[in-house]
């Protein structure tokens, strides 16, 4: 039997849910944002759970039975249980107190698609902290069975990384969501939790358009248009010895199978073709839609290993290829 904590009970009425959301927004807004937080008495909250209230009722019944039947041993049992519950309150609070939370930089994030957040929980006081759960405090509607909490044990003087899923609603420099950590350890009668607002904004790229039209036609350096996306390195002049960094699909596998020699196709001077991606080519007037399409195109051009540049209002990114170039383009799209 696993007494994993269930999420907060589903709101009974829309009014209550709205009120809860309001309280949460107000609460999160008054938090001081920081990228790393070490939890102290000021930031760790504790309240009995429903099970804790049940235990309180049980204790009351035990006490009444002890009084009515004049059972001194019953008093002992009741008071030992109550003492253990108090100790559990302290242990639960200490389980979270002193823990350090740190939000790691995200790798790559597009608006509206799952955004992996990585939270590091570090322990420095030399005791294990079992059963700690972390979640994103957002207001996205979720299915009742979908438990947003991610559970982990933090070893003594060690750290653990927890992956959370989030979804940014728009591109740009986005304030990260508030995060919450909680524990029900050790007896499940107290919920100990904290709410934390990470500071460093996340750079969210525009959502790539789902079914974007094919890439616009590229141009030779002299201005002769080429047959668009068809030319993903189909022509080549010959082969040369494989060099580090050559894409795998350029390797002549047949040759390798025959002779064990690794050779690459040598492209017909790719420098002579370049693809400029610019807002005008999208044919869209809505700025966000346009950026979405440009984003899709950047990704497509990168996949096709084309030489491409990006021309926006404020920035011109000279044609290039590779991950650094791709990131430069995406960041320009995110922040323009």
């Amino acid at each position, binding site marked *: *039997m*696993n*007494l*994993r*904590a*269930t999420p907060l009970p589903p709101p009974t009425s829309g009014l209550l849910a709205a009120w809860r959301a309001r309280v949460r927004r107000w609460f999160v807004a008054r938090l001081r944002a920081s990228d790393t937080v070490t939890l*102290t*008495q000021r930031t760790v909250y504790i309240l009995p759970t*429903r*099970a804790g209230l*049940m*235990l309180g009722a*049980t204790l009351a*019944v*035990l006490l*009444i*039975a*002890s*009084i*009515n*039947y*004049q*059972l*001194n*041993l*019953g*008093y*002992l*049992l*009741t*008071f*030992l*249980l*109550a*003492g*253990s*519950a*108090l*100790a*559990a309150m*302290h*242990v639960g609070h200490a389980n979270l107190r002193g823990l350090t939370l740190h939000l790691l930089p995200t790798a790559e994030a597009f608006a509206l698609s799952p955004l992996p957040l990585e939270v590091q929980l570090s322990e420095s006081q030399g005791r294990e902290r*079992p*059963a700690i759960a972390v979640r994103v405090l957002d207001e996205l509607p979720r299915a009742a069975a979908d438990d947003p909490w991610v*559970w*982990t*044990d933090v070893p003594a003087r060690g750290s653990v990384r927890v992956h959370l899923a989030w979804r940014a609603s728009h591109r740009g420099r986005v304030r990260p969501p508030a995060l919450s950590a909680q524990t*029900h*350890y*050790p*007896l*499940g009668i107290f919920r100990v939790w904290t709410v934390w607002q990470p500071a460093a904004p996340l750079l969210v790229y525009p959502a790539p358009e789902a079914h974007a039209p094919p890439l616009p036609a590229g141009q030779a350096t002299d201005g002769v248009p080429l047959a668009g996306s068809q030319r993903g390195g189909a022509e080549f002049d010959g082969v040369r010895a494989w060099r580090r960094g050559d894409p795998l699909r350029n390797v002549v596998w047949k040759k390798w199978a025959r002779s064990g020699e690794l050779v690459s196709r040598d492209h017909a001077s790719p420098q002579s073709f370049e693809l400029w991606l610019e807002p005008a080519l999208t044919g869209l007037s809505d700025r966000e839609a346009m950026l979405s399409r440009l984003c899709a195109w950047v990704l497509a051009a990168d996949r096709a290993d084309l030489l491409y540049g990006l021309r926006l209002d404020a920035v011109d990114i000279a044609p290039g290829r590779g991950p650094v170039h791709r990131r430069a383009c995406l960041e320009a799209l995110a922040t323009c």
Partner: protein
Amino acid sequence: MLSASSPASPASAGQPARSRLAALRQRFTRLPREARDTLFLLLVIAWIIAPHLGHLPTWCGALALATLLGRGALAVAGRPLPGALWRVGLLLIAVGATLATHRTLFGRDAGVTLIVVLLALKTLELRARRDAFVVFFLGFFTMLTNFFFSQSLTTAAAMLVALLGLLTALVNAHRPVGRPGLGTSAGVALRLALWGTPVMVALFLLFPRVAPLWSLPTDARSAKSGLSATMEVGNITQLALDDSIAMRVKFDGAVPPQPELYFRGPVLSEFDGRIWRPRVLRRSADPAPDLQALGAPVRYQVTLEPTQQPWLFALDAVTERPRIGGLPTRLTPDLQWLAERPVTELLRYTAQSHPQYRLGPLQAEGATRIALQDDVDLPPGFNPRTLQLAAELQRDPRLAGRGAGALVEAMLERLRTGGYRYTLEPAPAGVNTADAFWFDTKEGFCEHIASAFVVLMRALDVPARVVTGYQGGELNRLDGFLEVRQSDAHAWAEVWIAGQGWVRVDPTAAVAPGRTGTAQRLAPPQGAITQAIGTLSPDLLARLRQGWSALNNSWNQWVLNYTQNRQLDFLRNLGFEEPDWRDLARVLAALVGLAAAVSAVWALWQRAQHDPWLRLLERARARLRRAGLAVPEGATPRALVQLLQSNPLPRSSTNGSDSAPLVDWLLALERWRYARPTDGATTQAAHTTAASRRADLAALRRRFTQLPWHPRR
């Protein structure tokens, strides 16, 4: 998942028990976590229910155990739990059977039956988190119900294990990640309980003991063995087999000799031919017993086990109304001491008795004569041969006119020499018990002898009555308490003799002098193990019994007998003049406040900087800040040096200081913390090195105070 038909099981059948145990253990550790946790919880529940099996209806114990076993099998096999139809069906059967057994669903016994069944059945429904908690809380309650039946040390120890088991299961259930060892969880549970112990002790000592909040259902008072209110021949014989403690007596000073240890209980004056009963008391009219103390008193303290009866046993004869806090008492004219309500819990009282006394009127005149006449009444139509014997005796010239004392002496002589035998298993007596004893069987236990003796005395026109109680006891050398057991229950006679009043006569002593002289008793046959230990070392057995008894006694004295009086005594020792429950609350509140203050200080202490080096550095930063420098938080000594070099402290006109000594000091501070230890710092010298490092830091601290700081403006 292991199935029952795994190839390992037939092979292990012939192996020695130890390896089979190891295989079982391995099998347990290899179970999936869910199954392992469930099995553990089931074990704990079985442990909690086990003490109940003795007094539960058979069907209830069988159903509970079968349910637990079935649930365990499902868990091991990984099969789904039975559907709602099963659960509801079983529940209905259980409720029906409870009704059939107890005729009610309320009251203690029916409640215990129901709660045990519910606890077992609830294990079939462990789906949601809430179900699991219900099992835990039902478990706690079932533990308490064990105390209805026994509050002994053994029960307490068993339930402590059960509590730790339940807490372990709870802790384990709240470690959802991976497969934590049960040992780890047990460690956490033990720690929780240890930390809870001071709370338990404080609350136990100080929580006000109040009277029951409402009256209890009648079956709350279980029929405990012990003396009964009436005496029918055969009653005390049963008690002779009962080795449990009836009371423990602590004497101030020496224990009186065995023949004086008559603890007086119910006095039986009415006889209907078969049953002896106490005289119905007309409370308002009860005169105080006419008692005259002779000789030195004996003071003692009695710890009485619950009897469910109002009798308070005391040595003959109680001269002073015994002290017993909070419970009104009264003395009957026949010197029996009664409490206002039945003794349902362990009760402690102090008393004072005079072994030498004179009871009752000395001469039978007027009203006294009429009152005494009640004590010669015999039911007509019983014991004709005894009456005839009495008539013959009255006609006997040797006895005629010599008074009751001579009659008593003659009868005791008859008992001594007439071939009468003291036995636990007398032949059946029929209707005329006195006739049977005097003439036919000539054997009996104390009640036969006392009853026959009193009948004969009354037939002789001598006022006489039966007194029941306890006689003797065994001194526990470990704690100095006299232990009086149920097997010490006794019946004797009291005879009124003109000029002497009521005189105790123990006819049993005449039949079997050993009964009252020494601790020798008729003992029931012993069990095989007891016999084995007894033959091995008779002394060991006695000492084991005494040790265990002493342990139980201190448990009784300190835990079970901690009543409101002891609570108030405790407060008096703390220095309260007239303690009442408000003082208890005050002490409790003070303790809570103290605990809160200590934890607040502890929190502050934890938050404060403990590292002396860091504290010194922080002092330096603060000084520089006051001197007007913009010192960032957490600046290192080196950063401070750089700060000082880029903008030196303003030179003071009065003392002309500059920042050079300060820079030196900061660098020394840095070296203390970060410099590579010198080559001499081997492990052997580590201790001295630590000491010298502490001395170095102290020197740095001194230098800090002597630094030429720029005086504050």
